[in-house]
């Protein structure tokens, strides 16, 4: 059976054909290690993910390794594959997943878990780690959700924690040694359990108290560490960057090469997992970035280049970098895209320069409606900042403002929701206070709310999440009160966030629920049209597990958490302190203003050592 016949029948065949410009081709006879990077969503989303680009390039720079790619087939393709007994295959050589030496998934969001299980099944790989034999590939995972991979741990042979540039190569070296030594499967896991940053879930026993809380997490293999610590790259200038950027034929979500300017975030917003996971902030130098940029454009012919980080304005060399890049690329008709920029007069001028045509929307993320609640979540942005920013923006021709908020944050009351309404109204007032001839017609203020999801490794990890009914009422309140015609209100489905919280904070007992949900047909849960909340609730019921034990319970600070044995180098003591600061409505300065002593300085690099001397 050939794939071509199926491709003729699907909506977007180039999701499955590869052959993009800069795709890596290798002669298999030179290859010792075959790896498949699996992204548990469709091609267009996966190809917009920087991590995939970095690892693909990293592996393929090795002569003995070939890294290929696989994505979740869209529903039309999946149906045909199942009907025709075609296994999920890689884009590069059309090899079935179960024929690789190792396959790796990235855990980007909880709602992709069902896709992972489905991809394993489609690829002919036994779903559970314990059922895999000597001829099956090793299945690994990494990415932000892997810091609490417990709910999905039975499906993986091992997890890598932290940045992969060194770690993944060490694992590869070990695999080659293991292969040459012709040892049994378990020996490979024992070998890599000794590498810092590798977590082998089956090497740990978890016991529970009668009330369902965790009693103890204990290694059961002498190679496993009591505590597994994440890995980071200390000097980002010294690692490789994917300058041979693949150019998809299909328009993907972010259809431009990304230039990663730093990792981490100095700000420490208390709900934000990324802000803690990637500590400490480490910047790349302007010189290296300019070299990267030059090569990216040279190798791709792209008409746009995007800076990438959690908060562009916090890059210390930002203005020099932006000026240099504009100087170099403007004559070559390459646009610069500057996302997540703090809006002030200087940045607006810059945006004016780079956005020579479009004045698309400006984005603000106050996250909460009142200063009180913004202090609780440590979001260092004031109403004045926002109104000032809007005024400047309106005066320089923008007429489209997007505001992002979260509802259901710890300590939130209806006063805080009223605060969202008031802030949106004030922005409208600012606009109309500007003389007609000095602003662009047709104001649109878009207010978007997402639902707060308490995440592991944040000061809010102990907090509970609102139930669906409460969230819906709050959304209703905003719908009725955001009445100004210039204001548009968007909200997220509260049921999705409900499940997200359960899967984010869950423990190993959820593995059987995931398996059951898969049996019931859950797939593409991140896609509204396929997410079936009732099926998930059915799966919990069938397994006799109360999902809300995980997400709607105030967890005592001394309780053992499912991720207690994982160390991101931000201490639990710090999170407790931050939790108490939140309840006391006390803000904590950002890493550059004053070190808060989170623990990440132990890595001995980055922002912790910038100018403040040594941190505690």
């Amino acid at each position, binding site marked *: 059976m050939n794939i*071509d016949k199926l491709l003729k029948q699907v909506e977007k065949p180039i999701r499955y054909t590869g052959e993009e410009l800069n795709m890596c081709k290798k002669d298999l006879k030179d290859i010792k290690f075959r790896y498949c990077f699996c992204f548990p969503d469709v091609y267009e989303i996966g190809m917009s993910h920087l991590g995939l680009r970095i690892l693909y390039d990293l592996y393929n720079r090795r002569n003995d390794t070939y890294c290929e790619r696989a994505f979740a087939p869209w529903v039309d393709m999946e149906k045909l594959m199942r009907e025709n007994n075609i296994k999920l295959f890689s884009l590069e050589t059309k090899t079935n997943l179960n024929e690789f030496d190792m396959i790796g998934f990235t855990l980007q969001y909880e709602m992709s878990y069902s896709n992972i299980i489905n991809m394993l099944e489609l690829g002919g790989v036994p779903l559970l780690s314990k059922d895999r034999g000597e001829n099956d590939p090793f299945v690994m995972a990494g990415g932000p959700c892997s810091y609490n991979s417990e709910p999905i741990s039975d499906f993986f042979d091992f997890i890598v924690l932290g940045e992969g540039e060194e770690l993944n190569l060490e694992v590869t070296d070990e695999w080659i040694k293991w292969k040459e030594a012709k040892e049994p499967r378990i020996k490979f896991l024992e070998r890599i359990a000794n590498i810092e940053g590798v977590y082998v879930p089956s090497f740990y026993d978890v016991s529970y108290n009668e009330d369902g809380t965790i009693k103890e997490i204990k290694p059961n293999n002498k190679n496993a560490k009591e505590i597994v610590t994440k890995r980071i790259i200390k000097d980002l200038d010294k690692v490789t960057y994917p300058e041979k950027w693949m150019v998809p034929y299909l328009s993907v979500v972010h259809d431009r090469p990304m230039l990663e300017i730093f990792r981490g975030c100095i700000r420490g917003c208390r709900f934000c997992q990324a802000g803690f996971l990637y500590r400490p902030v480490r910047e790349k130098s302007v010189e290296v970035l300019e070299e990267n940029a030059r090569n990216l454009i040279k190798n791709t*012919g792209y008409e746009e280049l995007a800076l990438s980080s959690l908060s562009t304005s916090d890059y210390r060399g930002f203005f020099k970098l932006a000026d240099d890049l504009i100087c170099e690329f403007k004559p070559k008709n390459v646009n610069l895209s500057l996302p997540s920029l703090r809006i002030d007069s200087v940045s607006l001028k810059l945006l004016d320069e780079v956005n020579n045509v479009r004045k698309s929307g400006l984005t603000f993320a106050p996250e909460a409606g009142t200063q009180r609640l913004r202090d609780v979540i440590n979001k260092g942005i004031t109403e004045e900042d926002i109104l000032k920013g809007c005024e400047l923006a309106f005066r320089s021709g923008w007429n489209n403002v997007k505001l992002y908020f979260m509802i259901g944050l710890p300590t939130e009351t209806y006063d805080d929701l009223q605060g969202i309404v008031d802030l949106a109204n004030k922005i409208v007032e600012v606009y109309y206070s500007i003389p007609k001839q000095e602003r662009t017609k047709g104001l649109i203020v878009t207010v978007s709310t997402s639902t707060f999801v308490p995440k592991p490794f944040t000061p809010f990890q102990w907090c509970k999440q609102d139930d669906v009914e409460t969230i819906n009422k709050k959304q209703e309140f905003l719908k009725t009160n955001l009445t100004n015609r210039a204001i548009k209100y968007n909200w997220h489905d509260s049921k999705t966030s409900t499940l997200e919280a359960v899967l984010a904070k869950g423990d190993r007992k959820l593995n059987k629920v995931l398996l059951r949900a898969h049996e019931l047909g859950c797939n593409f849960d991140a896609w509204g049209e396929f997410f079936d909340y009732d099926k998930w609730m059915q799966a919990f019921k069938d397994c006799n597990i109360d999902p809300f034990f995980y997400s709607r319970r105030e967890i005592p600070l001394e309780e053992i958490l499912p991720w207690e044995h994982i160390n991101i180098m931000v201490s639990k003591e710090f999170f407790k302190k931050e939790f108490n600061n939140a309840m006391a409505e006390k803000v904590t300065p950002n890493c550059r203003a004053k070190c808060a002593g989170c623990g990440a300085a132990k890595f001995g690099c980055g922002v912790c050592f910038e100018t403040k001397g040594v941190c505690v």
Partner: protein
Amino acid sequence: MIYRMKFEKRDEVKYIGHLDTMRTFTRCIKKTNLPIKFSSGFNPRVQLAFALPLAVGVTSECEYFDLELNGDVECQEVIDELNKNFPDGFKVLTCEKLEKAKGLMSLVTEANYEISILVSTNNNEEIVAKLNEAFNKEQVLVTKQAKNGKEEEIDIKPLIIDLQVVDLNYNTIIVKVHCLAGSKNNLNPNYVVQVIKSVVPEEELDDYNIHRKKLILNEQ
């Protein structure tokens, strides 16, 4: 100076649509060392004109595009530069300098396609006979999906100049079509496939491939 390129589009890239192909070519051309002529205006573009767009899923050995360069470059150099930078599956075959060029699209008048059919029966002869019968009819009717979603029946016979059914044995049959092409009267080869599908029972049709063999340009 305008350079007229003839290129091929092979199997591995046949699902890439016309617009995606154009976008990719633009990027690849920017990667070359050629003295590209950009359009003037707010958003300068590479000056690139294609002949008749190829339907998705069709391979070809006779695609054309015109590229405008500043100054005089050897044709072989243009070919080499482009091929060095094009993704696998696309290859420039020939290049010709033109002082002036009429819109490529308007020059296309006729085309040759070869549609190879893979059948899972050893009854090639019967299928060949059935195909000949279908195409020899007074009218060859197919259904066309109109823009408004409605279906309408059209007769493709007037668009066919010549059609031959060739039995290659080994389960392969080739339908060679010489037809009208271009912006006025154009036969989409997928209609020919539609006819084939109506004749060959589904369980006997393993696969098929459409290949554009020749585009006839009316140069004067």
